[in-house]
């Protein structure tokens, strides 16, 4: 029976001549047109508009035309200390968040995986992620408050903080915003890693254990290599998020004190929507976009490397 089915599949009956004709190229163009038009409207048009703005001194007033300035906005970036400092702070912020979140997320996932309380605990851990970032910022703003903030009181009672609150010092404000981001987004990493852990092949683990490998060796030899693709997805998502999500930072510090938390997207927001210098803001946004795309491409290319492919 199986033989018969296979044979039938390999030698199908001749299709009617109308269906046998390969569709023309125009046919595919028609099929793709709605999607391309939609993509163009929501993505390509703003992208080219961004480039246009970055080459102009933009007037928002309908009565005043935009003025062509060529690459002047880009040239200004090189001498703008706050722009360069914004990059440095963004790297510090993103890398710190990434290390903490991946480390904690992985740890939590390993602890939770197949545990008796996995489902209820995962639900509880996911709660911060469900909160709008601006609300998270507001909640932590009050928790950190030097006068009535509970966390501030705890940290001062433990002697970790002196009289200055965590957001009130240039040396600790960055830590404050990293903690908030970690609190909110570690559950995402946990969730992704948990999904990855479910796909770690049990036969490989068992075979390795039969060979005498312990839990730690098993983790590094079998579990971690199988988790790489999942971790890469998590890192990619969070990296891009950190380049975009500034709601909590705006609420917590507004980029202060003394610009110590003014990561580049916060500076971009200030230039564009407080100072309404849209041309210069577009130049900043374009450089941010380019770097985000490059990082994205590097991470995506890592997926395709055979050494990082999931082992089945």
């Amino acid at each position, binding site marked *: 029976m199986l033989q018969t089915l296979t044979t039938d599949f390999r030698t199908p009956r001749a299709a009617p001549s109308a269906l046998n004709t390969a569709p023309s190229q125009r046919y595919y163009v028609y099929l793709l047109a709605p999607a391309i038009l939609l993509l163009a409207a929501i993505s390509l048009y703003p992208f080219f508009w961004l480039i246009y703005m970055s080459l102009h001194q933009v007037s*928002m007033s309908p009565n005043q035309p935009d003025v062509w300035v060529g690459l002047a906005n880009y040239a200004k970036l090189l001498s703008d200390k706050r722009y360069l400092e914004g990059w440095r702070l963004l790297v510090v912020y993103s890398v710190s968040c990434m290390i903490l979140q991946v480390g904690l997320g992985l740890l939590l996932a390993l602890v939770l995986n197949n545990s008796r309380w996995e489902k209820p605990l995962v639900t509880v851990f996911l709660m911060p992620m469900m909160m709008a970032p601006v609300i998270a910022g507001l909640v932590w703003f009050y928790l950190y408050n030097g*006068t009535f903030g509970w966390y501030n009181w705890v940290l001062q009672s433990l002697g970790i903080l002196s*009289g200055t609150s965590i957001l009130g*010092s240039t040396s600790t404000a960055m830590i404050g915003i990293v903690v908030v981001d970690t609190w909110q987004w570690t559950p995402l990493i946990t969730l992704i890693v948990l999904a990855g852990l479910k796909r770690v092949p049990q036969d490989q683990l068992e075979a390795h254990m039969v060979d005498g490998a312990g839990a730690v060796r098993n983790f590094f030899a079998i579990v971690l290599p199988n988790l790489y693709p999942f971790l890469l997805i998590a890192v990619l998502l969070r990296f891009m998020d950190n380049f975009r999500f500034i709601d909590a930072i705006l609420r917590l510090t507004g980029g202060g*004190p*003394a*610009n110590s938390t003014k990561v580049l997207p916060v500076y971009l927001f200030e230039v564009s929507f*407080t100072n*309404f210098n849209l041309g210069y803001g577009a130049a900043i946004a374009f450089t941010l976009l380019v770097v985000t795309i490059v990082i994205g491409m590097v991470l995506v290319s890592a997926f395709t490397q055979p050494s990082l492919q999931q082992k089945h």
Partner: protein
Amino acid sequence: MFRPIKGAVRRRVSRREFLQRGGALVAGLGAGGLIVGGGSTIVSTRVQAQSSDDAKWKQFSGSKLVFMSENTPPSFAIRDNLKAFYDLTGIDVEILTDDLPVVQQKVGIDLRGGSADFQLNYVQDKPIGAPFAEFYADMSKFIGDDSLPQDKDGYGAEAWFDNFLDACGYYYTRDRLVALPYDAAVACTFYRQDLFEKMTKDFEADYGYRLEFTKETTWKQVNDIAKFFKMMHEKDNSIPYGYAQHQGSFAWTTQLDIQRMLFAHGRWTDFNVDDKLGSRTPGKTNWGDPQSVLIMEKFKEQADNSHPDNLANGTLQLNTVYQAGQIAMQVQYHEFAASVEDPKTSAAAGGKTAYAPCPRGEPSWIVNGGEAVNGTNCGIGGIGINANASEDLQKAAWIFASWAVSTNNQFSVLKGLGGTPTRKSVLAIPEVGAARERPTAMPNALTFDAVYDYGILDPNFVLGPKIPKSNEYHQILASEVQKCLAGETSPEEACKAIQTQLDELNEA
């Protein structure tokens, strides 16, 4: 629980029909949403000069306006009282409120984008008025228009407290009136009289003069008081710190904090322009001169002796610190007296707090010549009309603006949530006069001696630079002053950095 009724005719809906109905529903909801969310509507009935007052008030009955405002007491109180306006005019007004930086962004996009989603705006003098002045309607065209209702107290400079109309009404020229004074936040000193009396002996032993605060008290004495209280706090932490600054995240309040100290010393200003009118081309800044460097040094010294959370405390947080009894003195905006005098939320209530003008300049700290004054700055919030709105919408908006700043309205706000009047006529009301003394039902009135009778008058009044790039200016100042206070730069470096950036900003 839910059973089909016996005998009922049930009809199966086909997938096509379902999609058709769904599509129609979505289209209907979308169209409805556009109509509802469209913001303003205008309905007008022509009136003549001879028409009755009632007809003039009601000429735009059925219209709808949107007012974007800061979340301050007058807007809350007026929102609570909108029915009275609706009954008077038939105009429906929606008041949206938010934090000032958000208001600034929203109205900025609306104004500069050529839209009129918010026909009425809260025009805070420097953050909103200075950069967007040209986008507001000239209100002088409505004043004296006999087809529109007019306030019996008028709208000229004499109707408002000194300098208020200049502060929020005029920008770079007196040919256009951009806004009418709507509310005011004027700086004055709040201090714990009970603690001052209790500790005066110790203080006198150390510093040789009484621990008290008068309009003659100088910034040098404030620094002494801050230092003394800090020393006492370190011995006994139940004793509060002496002072705290407004160096939290909002750039404008940070700038105001050092500005009043600078102005107190020889009436120093950032630019050599008409301080009340402002300038589109302010020229080179005075930052970096010996006077600014000296005051920056003293300001840093003050910060070092102040409450340690200086760099986290914005204006609101600072007031919370004072309410919590953690500092003995603050220079604060007079609108906060209501919260300080509320025994439910404040340890400084119940007659413990006294109010005085801002500290005076220390003569020995004046190096540029000039006099020592009680430098007093403020934020005067105006109400302005979006010039992108149609002529009829602008007239309807004028009716609301005129009503909102009327004496009766300001008086009711003062009695209710604790407003800050801008019309002189409010102070002439006997009930308000009586409220200036304890016990009072209008706590903000306790500050009126320091504010309206002294602080806002020349030569003490300083507005600060009204320049088109005022927001950039505030950011530069806040960043560099905070860096200095955090010990990252020296006072001289900070002043020079401000000078370089401001000159570049203004292409001077």
